[in-house]
C-alpha cells in the first residue's frame, strides 16, 4: 500500500518547483516560503510515515517499488521510471527530506532579504526532486537523471548571486569538473548495459556474481568507471577542486547540497553498486586509497583557510574521504552511518556559519570574527555541538561513534592495514585541530566586527534540531564493547553485506582510547596555537619552509594550478587560435585561387586584336600538334 505513495515524495517538491518557476514572480514572499519550504516538509513527513511503515513491517523482498511509466523502449533497452525504496535509499531519503526541510525552513528567514526569493526556492525544490530521484532510482539511467539534475541545481545555486562573475566561474567549475566524472560514469553504464543487457540496478546486482569473476578486468574497469562518477560528485581526489569554490553559493545551499546530500551521492553510488566493487579487490583498494589520500589532503588544506566556509568545505571533502575509506574497506554500513551523522553536523555547521556570516554583515574571514560567544549564544552553542561532532569528541558526540567505527575498521577489517589506520587516525587529529581553530577564532577572543543582524527563530529552531541530532543520533549504533547497539547496521544489512573482520583481532578499546587521545591532542594543540600563543603561530607561519607549505596547503595542494596548466590553458589556447576555423581557410584558399585565375585570364582579354589573332594561331598550332603527336 505504501508502494503507491512513493511517487509523492519527489512529487511534492516537484510541484513546488513548477509553481515557483512559473508563477514565482507573482507570488508574495509568504506564499513562496509556504510553497518552497512546505513542499519539502510534506515530503519529509511522508518519508517519516513511509519509513516507519517500512521499519515496522519490512516487505518480504526488502523494498517498496513503484513503476510510474516506461521511459522509453528501444530494442532490448527498456528503462522505466521506477522508484525503488529499500533500507539504503530510505536512509538517504530520510536525510534528504528531513535535513532538506530544516534547511528550507532556515532559508525562509535567511534569504528573506534576497530579491530572487522565488528563484532560490525553486532551485532548492528542484534539487530535492533530483536528489530524491537519484536515490530512489530503480535503474542506472534514472539515477543518472537525478545525478545530472543535482549537478544542474548545484550549478544554479552556486551561481545564485550571478552578478558577480567569480560566482559564475565557481558554478561552471563545479559543473564541468563533476561532468568529467559523469562522463566516465556514462561509459560505465554502456559497459554495464552490454554486459547485462539492462540498466536495472536490482537486476545487475543479482546478475553480477554469476556473470563476472572476482578480479576480472571488466569488473575492475566498470567499477573504476562508476567510481570516477562518484569521485567527481563527491569531490574526491583528483576531482575535489570544485568544492571549496562552490562555497560562493548561499549558506543553506552549501549546507544542503555541498555538505549533507549531493556530495555524498558518490558514496551512495558505490554503496549501491557494492556487489561490483566487492568483486574487484583492485577497485576496492582504489576506493580506500582515494578516501585516505583525500581526507589527509583536505585536512591539511582546512588547517590553513581563513574563510570559515572554506574550512567547512575542506572538512566536508575530508569527511567524505572517511566515507570512501570505509567503503573501500568494505565497511559499508560504517560509511553510510558516517554519511548520516555527517549530514547532521555539517548541515548544522554550515547553517550556523551562515548565521554568523550574516550577523557580521557578510564577513567570511574568521580572523575578523571573534568574541561571538556571548553575542550570539544560540549560534555559539549549536556551533559548538556541531564542532564537537565533527572533531569526534568522545562519548558525547555522534561524530565519535561514526568515525570511531571507521577507524576501527581501518585496522580490523579484511582490507584494513596499518597505513590506512594511521592515515585515518592522523586525519582525526587534523580534524580536531582545524575544528578547534575555527571555533576559537570565531567565538572566542575579541570582537573584531560588530554584529548587525540577529538570527530569527526560524533560523535558530532548525539549528537546535540539528544540534540535537548531532549529539544523539550516534546512539543508535554503539560499539560492541560500549553498549553494543546495532540498530542502524541491522537495518542496512538488508541491503549491504556485513563487514568482514580479520581473524583474531582484539583490543577495540585500545584503539578507541587512541582515537580519543588524538582528538584531545588536536584540541589542545589548537588551543595552544590559536588561543594561548597566537604569536607563535604567526612566527611559525613566517618561517621559511613552513610558509611555502602553508601556501601549498592553502591553495589546495596546487591541484588547481596543475589543471590550469595541463588542461584549461591548452584547450583555451587551441580554441583561441582556431577561433576562425583553419578548415575554413582551406575553402577561402580555393576561392582566392579562383579569383587569381580569373585575374590572370582577364589579362589575356587585353582588347588588342593582334593579341587575339595570336591566340587564334596558337590554338590552331595546338590542335595541329595534338594531331601530329597522336
Amino acid at each position, binding site marked *: 500500500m505504501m508502494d503507491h505513495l512513493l511517487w509523492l515524495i519527489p512529487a511534492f517538491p516537484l510541484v513546488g518547483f513548477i509553481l515557483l*518557476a512559473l508563477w514565482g*514572480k507573482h507570488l508574495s514572499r509568504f506564499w513562496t516560503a509556504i510553497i518552497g519550504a512546505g513542499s519539502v516538509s510534506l515530503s519529509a513527513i511522508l518519508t517519516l510515515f513511509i519509513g516507519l511503515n517500512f521499519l515496522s513491517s519490512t516487505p518480504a523482498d526488502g523494498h517498496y517499488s513503484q513503476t510510474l*511509466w*516506461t*521511459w*522509453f*523502449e*528501444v*530494442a532490448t*533497452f527498456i528503462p522505466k*521510471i521506477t522508484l525503488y525504496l529499500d533500507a539504503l535509499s530510505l536512509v538517504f531519503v530520510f536525510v534528504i527530506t528531513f535535513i532538506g526541510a530544516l534547511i528550507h525552513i532556515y532559508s525562509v528567514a535567511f534569504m528573506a532579504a534576497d530579491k530572487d526569493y522565488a*528563484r532560490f526556492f525553486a532551485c532548492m525544490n528542484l534539487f530535492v526532486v533530483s536528489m530524491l530521484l537519484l536515490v530512489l532510482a530503480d535503474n542506472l*539511467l534514472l539515477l*543518472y*537523471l537525478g*545525478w*545530472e*539534475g543535482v549537478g*544542474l541545481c548545484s*550549478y*544554479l545555486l552556486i*551561481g545564485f548571486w*550571478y*552578478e*558577480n*562573475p567569480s560566482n*559564475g*566561474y565557481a*558554478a*561552471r567549475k563545479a*559543473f*564541468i569538473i563533476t*561532468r*568529467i566524472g*559523469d*562522463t566516465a560514469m*556514462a*561509459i560505465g*553504464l*554502456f*559497459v554495464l*548495459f*552490454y554486459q547485462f543487457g539492462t540498466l536495472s540496478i536490482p537486476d545487475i546486482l543479482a546478475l553480477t556474481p554469476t556473470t563476472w569473476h572476482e578480479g576480472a578486468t571488466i569488473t575492475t574497469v566498470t567499477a573504476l568507471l562508476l567510481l570516477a562518477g562518484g569521485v567527481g560528485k563527491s569531490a574526491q581526489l583528483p576531482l575535489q577542486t570544485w568544492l571549496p569554490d562552490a562555497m560562493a553559493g548561499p549558506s543553506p545551499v552549501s549546507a544542503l547540497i555541498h555538505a549533507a546530500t549531493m556530495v555524498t551521492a558518490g558514496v551512495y553510488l558505490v554503496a549501491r553498486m557494492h556487489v561490483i566493487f566487492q568483486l574487484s579487490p583492485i577497485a576496492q583498494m582504489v576506493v580506500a586509497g582515494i578516501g585516505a589520500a583525500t581526507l589527509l589532503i583536505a585536512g591539511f588544506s582546512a588547517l590553513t583557510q581563513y574563510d570559515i566556509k572554506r574550512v567547512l568545505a575542506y572538512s566536508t571533502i575530508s569527511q567524505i574521504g572517511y566515507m570512501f575509506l570505509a567503503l573501500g574497506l568494505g565497511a559499508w554500513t560504517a560509511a553510510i552511518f558516517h554519511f548520516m551523522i555527517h549530514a547532521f553536523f555539517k548541515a548544522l555547521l554550515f547553517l550556523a556559519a551562515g548565521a554568523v556570516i550574516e550577523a557580521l554583515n557578510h564577513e567570511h574571514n574568521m580572523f575578523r570574527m571573534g568574541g561571538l560567544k556571548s553575542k550570539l549564544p544560540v549560534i555559539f552553542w549549536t556551533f559548538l555541538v556541531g564542532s564537537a561532532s565533527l572533531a569526534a569528541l568522545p562519548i558525547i558526540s555522534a561524530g565519535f561513534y561514526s568515525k570511531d567505527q571507521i577507524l576501527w575498521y581501518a585496522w580490523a577489517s579484511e582490507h584494513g592495514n596499518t597505513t590506512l589506520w594511521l592515515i585515518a587516525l592522523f586525519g582525526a587529529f587534523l580534524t580536531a585541530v582545524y575544528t578547534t581553530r575555527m571555533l576559537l577564532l570565531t567565538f572566542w577572543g575579541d570582537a573584531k566586527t560588530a554584529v548587525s543582524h540577529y538570527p530569527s527563530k526560524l533560523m535558530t529552531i532548525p539549528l537546535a534540531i540539528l544540534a540535537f541530532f548531532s549529539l544523539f543520533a550516534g546512539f543508535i549504533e554503539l560499539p560492541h564493547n560500549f553498549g553494543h547497539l546495532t540498530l542502524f547496521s541491522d537495518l542496512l544489512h538488508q541491503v549491504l553485506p556485513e563487514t568482514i573482520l580479520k581473524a583474531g583481532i582484539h583490543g577495540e578499546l585500545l584503539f578507541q582510547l587512541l582515537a580519543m587521545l588524538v582528538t584531545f591532542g588536536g584540541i589542545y594543540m589548537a588551543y595552544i596555537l590559536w588561543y594561548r600563543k597566537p604569536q607563535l603561530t604567526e612566527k611559525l607561519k613566517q618561517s621559511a619552509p613552513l610558509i611555502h607549505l602553508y601556501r601549498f596547503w592553502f591553495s589546495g595542494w596546487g591541484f588547481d594550478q596543475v589543471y590550469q596548466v595541463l588542461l584549461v590553458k591548452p*584547450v583555451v589556447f*587551441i*580554441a*583561441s587560435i*582556431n*577561433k576562425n*576555423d583553419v*578548415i*575554413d581557410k*582551406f*575553402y577561402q584558399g580555393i576561392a582566392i585561387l579562383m579569383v587569381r585565375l580569373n585575374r590572370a585570364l582577364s589579362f589575356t582579354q587585353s582588347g588588342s586584336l593582334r593579341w587575339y589573332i595570336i591566340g587564334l594561331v596558337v590554338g590552331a598550332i595546338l590542335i595541329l600538334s595534338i594531331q601530329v603527336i597522336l
Partner: protein
Amino acid sequence: MILVYLIGLLMGGGVLALLMGQWNNSLPKWIALCTVSTGFILLLSFWIDQSRIMNTLLPETWMMEYRHDWISTFGISFHLAIDGLSLLLLVLTFFLGILAVLCSWKEVKERIGFYHFNLLWILAGISGVFMAMDLFLFYFFWEVMLIPMYFLIGIWGSENREYAAYKFFIFTQASGLLMLLAILGIYFIHGSNTGNYTFNYFELLGSDIAPNVAFWLMLGFMVAFVVKLPIVPFHSWLPDAHSEAPTAGSLILAGLLLKTGAYGILRFVLPLFPGAAQLVAPWAMLLGVIGIIYGAILAYSQTDLKRLIAYTSVSHMGFIMLGIFAFNELALQGVVMQLVTHAISTGALFIMAGMLKERLHTRDLRLMGGLWTQMPQMGASAILLAMASLGLPGLGNFIAEFLILLGAFKANVWLTILATCGLIFSAIYSLRLIQQVFLGASKNLDPIQDFSWREITLMASLLLSIIWLGLYPQPVINTVRPTIKKLEELFLIEKEYGHILINNKRIDSLPEKNVRQVKTELVPSNTHSYVR
C-alpha cells in the same frame, strides 16, 4: 494524395503571400500561418491516426504512397511516399514552419510578401525531400529548397549576408551536383543490368552494383549529405549561413535543412549501398567524433552568439554521423531522436538569439551580460536550452545522445569513448553561453522587455516539446521503429557480406541472397492497400 496537397499547399500559399504582399503588409503573415498550420493539423491528425495502428498490430513500413508519371522517357515519376521516418520529419517540418512564421512576425518589416513566399517554398522543398521516392525528384526538391533559402539569407540577413548566402549556395550546390552524378550512375548501372531504366527508389534498392563502383557512387551521395549535415571538413558554410540568416532562416537551417542530410544518409546511402557503407563506417564514425570535438572547441571560442550556436550544431551533428554508422537499432533510434530534439533545442536557441538581437541590436557576446535581471523568463528558457544542448537527462537531447553513444559503443568502443568526452565540451560551451549572456554584471542599463505573449507561446511550445521528448519519447520511437528495424536487419546480414567483401574473397551466394531478400523487403509489399 495528401502528400501532394501538402506540397501544393505550401507552394500555393507562397505564391498567394507574394501576390497579397503587394498591397497589404500583414496579410502574407496570416496566409503563411494558416497554410502551415493547416498542413500541421493535417499531418498531426494523420500521425495520431497512425500511432493507434502502431500500438496495436505489427505496423507496415510504408504508410502512404502517391505516384504519377513525370518524365517517362527517363523513367522519372512524381513518386511520393512516407514511412515513419518521413512522417516524423514532416511533422517536425510543419511544426518548425509555424514557429518560423511566428518568430519573424515582427522581425521582418519589409518585402513581407516575398519573404513569406521564400519561407513557404523552403518548407515545400524540404517536405518534398522527405517524401520523394524517386531519385530524380529527390534531387529536384533537394535543390528547390536552396534558392529561397539563398534569398532568405541574402536579402533579410545581417551585415555579411551576401558572402554567407554565396557560401551556402555554392557548398550545397557543388555537393548536390556530385550526388546528381552518383544518381545518374546508379540509374545507368541499374538500367543496363536489368533493362529497366528508372529512378524509382524501390526498384533501385534491389540493384546489384560492383563493390568498387558502389563505393564511388556512395561517396557521391555521401558528399551531398555530409555537406548538408555538416560533418567537419565540410562544415565551413554553416557558421556563416547560420549567423547571417534572419531568425527564421537560422531556425529552418538548423532545424530542418541539416536534417535532410541525415535523412538522406538513412534513406539512400545505407539501403542503396550497404556494403560500401560498411566499408567506410569506421572512417565516417571517426569524422563524426572529430566533428563532435572540433565543433565544440570552436563553439567555445566564438564571440558571436549565433556563430556559437552554429558550431554547437556542428558538434551535435557529429553524434548523428557516429550513430548512423553504428548500424544498430539503438544508435539509429538515437539518431532520429537527435534529429528531432536538435531541431527543437537549437532552433529555440536561434529564436532566442533573434529575440536578443531585436532587443540589443547585437550578436556580440562581449556586449551582453547580466541580462537575467531584466529578462528572467528568457534566462530560464536559455538555461533549459543550454542544458538540453549539453545533454541533461530529462530533456530530449539526452535520450538521443545516450542512445547514439550506447549504440555506437557496440560498434566501436574507443571512438565512442572519445565522443562521450564531447559531452564535457558541450558543458563547457553551453555554460559559457549562459554566463556571457545572462549572468555576470549587467552591461545594459536600458530597460529591456522580457518575453511578450507571442514569444512566450513560441518558447513554451518548444520547451514543452523538448521536455516531453525527454520524459516520454515513445511516440517518436514507435513511429520510426519499422524503418529502423528494416535498416538494422539489412546490416545484420550485411555484416557477413561486408566482411567477405573486405577480404576480397568471392562473395558467397548465400549472404548475398539474403541481402537481396532484405533489400526487397524494404520495398512496399502491398502498398496499394495502404494508399489513401
